[in-house]
């Protein structure tokens, strides 16, 4: 275990890769990955960080309305989502770009929502990934309900529901714990404790370590170094297996840090110290895997260069793709309000179309 991390934060999170890139063992958790799997995890993290940085830049340029950066949380998100089986189902929040990426959601599908051209962007059923949930904690209950459905079907899938330390205060989340325990639902509660709920530190939402809360609800809780992608994956795999084999929920607390602002509208210099960010920069999830891959001879300079190049190309595609996104037809706001014809909607759609056409006439 990383002594320095423990000394600073007084925690005992599961760790398999230290911030210095040293592979360490843990009595309860381990993971064996092939070289190409390890390379894949590195690639995922680098590309997601690239998407994240590009989106932040696009927001600054006025191309996006808002962006909630996942900077620093790549290992927690990708390590957990890549542990899932194809038919497992993820319920992400608005910050889980590493989760959506891992489920095959394209960057432009993510960014369309923030550009304001769509409210959704993908088919959750087909992609096994829910929409970005913005109302804090709401999706956690959805995850439990989906898991109850899996159980009723007699299937072996698992729902993984994501949330943050702030959500630990919400009634919906606590009710989700109660329901999951009552039904022994095949769900994994994946809490990224990134230390800050906008301006409020973790201890304002939970007076004990977050993973400890699980005990009171009657299922296991485990704390993992959220910046260690190997440990995150190992811990998630165990929780998934436990759920899959009918043993009920697990709460995973991924101990990590929100390196960026809450969103591009936020100014964290008003409430937290710069030194904290410096401390966490030394625990960067990408850097430690890179060191490990290089030292072990799993990847060389040409591999890292190639991923860098792939990131450049992706960033260029994103810039072009976002700028090419045009607002949809105004009348589309009446689509999908109901699944069956609705007289009032039809009437209002016609009114808007006629009204807009009246301007066309006067111009022409």
């Amino acid at each position: 275990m990383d002594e320095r991390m423990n000394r600073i934060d007084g925690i005992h999170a599961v760790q398999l890769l230290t911030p210095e890139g040293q592979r360490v063992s843990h009595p309860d958790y381990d993971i064996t990955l092939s070289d190409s799997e390890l390379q894949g995890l590195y690639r995922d993290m680098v590309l997601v960080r690239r998407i994240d940085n590009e989106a932040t830049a696009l927001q600054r340029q006025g191309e996006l309305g808002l962006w909630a950066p996942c900077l620093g949380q790549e290992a927690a998100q990708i390590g957990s989502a890549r542990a899932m089986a194809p038919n497992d189902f993820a319920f992400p929040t608005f910050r889980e770009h590493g989760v959506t990426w891992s489920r095959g959601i394209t960057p432009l599908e993510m960014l369309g929502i923030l550009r304001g051209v769509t409210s959704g962007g993908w088919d959750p059923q087909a992609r096994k990934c829910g929409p970005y949930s913005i109302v804090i904690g709401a999706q956690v209950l959805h995850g439990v309900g989906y898991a109850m459905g899996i159980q009723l079907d007699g299937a072996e899938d698992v729902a993984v529901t994501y949330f943050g330390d702030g959500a630990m205060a919400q009634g919906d989340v606590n009710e989700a714990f109660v329901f999951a325990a009552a039904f022994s639902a095949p769900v994994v509660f994946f809490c990224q404790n990134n230390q800050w709920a906008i301006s409020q530190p973790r201890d304002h939402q939970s007076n004990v370590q977050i993973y400890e809360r699980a005990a009171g609800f009657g299922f296991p809780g485990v704390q993992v170094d959220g910046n260690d992608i190997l440990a995150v994956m190992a811990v998630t795999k165990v929780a998934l297996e436990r759920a899959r084999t009918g043993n009920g929920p697990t709460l995973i607390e991924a101990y990590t840090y929100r390196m960026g602002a809450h969103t591009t509208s936020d100014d964290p210099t008003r409430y937290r110290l710069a030194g904290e960010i410096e401390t966490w920069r030394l625990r960067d999830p990408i850097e430690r895997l890179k060191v490990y891959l290089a030292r072990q001879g799993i990847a060389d300079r040409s591999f890292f260069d190639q991923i860098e190049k792939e990131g450049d190309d992706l960033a260029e595609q994103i810039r072009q793709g976002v700028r090419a996104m045009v607002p949809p037809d105004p009348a589309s706001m009446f689509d999908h309000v109901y699944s069956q014809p609705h007289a009032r909607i039809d009437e209002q759609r016609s009114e808007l179309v006629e009204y807009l056409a009246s301007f066309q006439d006067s111009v022409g």
Partner: protein
Amino acid sequence: MTNLTMVKAINAGLRKAMEHDPKVILFGEDIGRLGGVFRVTDNLQKDFGTHRVMDAPLAESGIVGTAVGLAMRGYRPVLEIQFDGFVYPSFNQIVSQVAKFHRRMAGAVMMPITIRIPYGGGIGAVEHHSESPEAYFAHTAGLRVLTPSDPQAAYLTIQQAIACNDPVIYFEPKRRYWDKGEVDESVSALDVGSVADPWRARVVRTGSDVTVACYGPTVRTCLEAAQASPDISIEVVDLQSLSPIDFDTLVSSIERTGRLVIVHEASMSGGVGAEIAARISEKCFYTLEAPVIRVTGFDVPYPASRLEEYFLPDLDRVLDAAERAMRY
């Protein structure tokens, strides 16, 4: 007089209310050191302390539910719900508890709670950040509903809302937060009789052909429409209070104009405009020269931000409605 944004005006009003009554406490998410996501409570925690400006855990039902207990203990909580779309987790506490407690206890307990909610669209925001949920609360007996339209009104009405012994849902039009206006900070709204009754509508522009009733964010829109109207003389009435609605002011305006257009951002069906139209058809049956016309958001979930300009009532739609009213 000071030239202030609405954000600063509400901040000044909160400060006055806190100076006036030590039982006034502020409670909400990120309202302390951050000063709220819109900075409405900026510096208040620094000046009044963490015991009077309290950062809440991230749980809206918790904020409102505990405020009920604080009120029973003699406090006067002023709550901030961060965005309109986040009020719903607390809907149960507001509708079943805050609104009904006084009546349930046969008047033995008062609920002097103010719930501040930034509301409305027009700022290019993501989902749940642009909604206008006022009708739910105006429909609920036991709640009063206020919404200011300019900095001076905001400065005064926030103090009056806090001083009110009934619960007040206080809707702040977020796209007008940065509009500036003259505010007379020397006046305290708590000097009874020195300032306007907050529950009265305000005629903010006189006219003779059509009365346009509006509130909150659409008041400026309607004033701009009235100004731009070449032929039709538009009188603009800022309702300000949505529960109760001041029908006296509205009726006397319609008695002059004979026509009424109601404007709000919220969806049309079952909205505040529907209540006004029904009441006016009863009170002004012999005066009206045209049917009451509503200009509102459509009956759809608030659209993705790149479509909001088509959803929101704008100057053209208000003028179009005024013209339609004149055709009868």
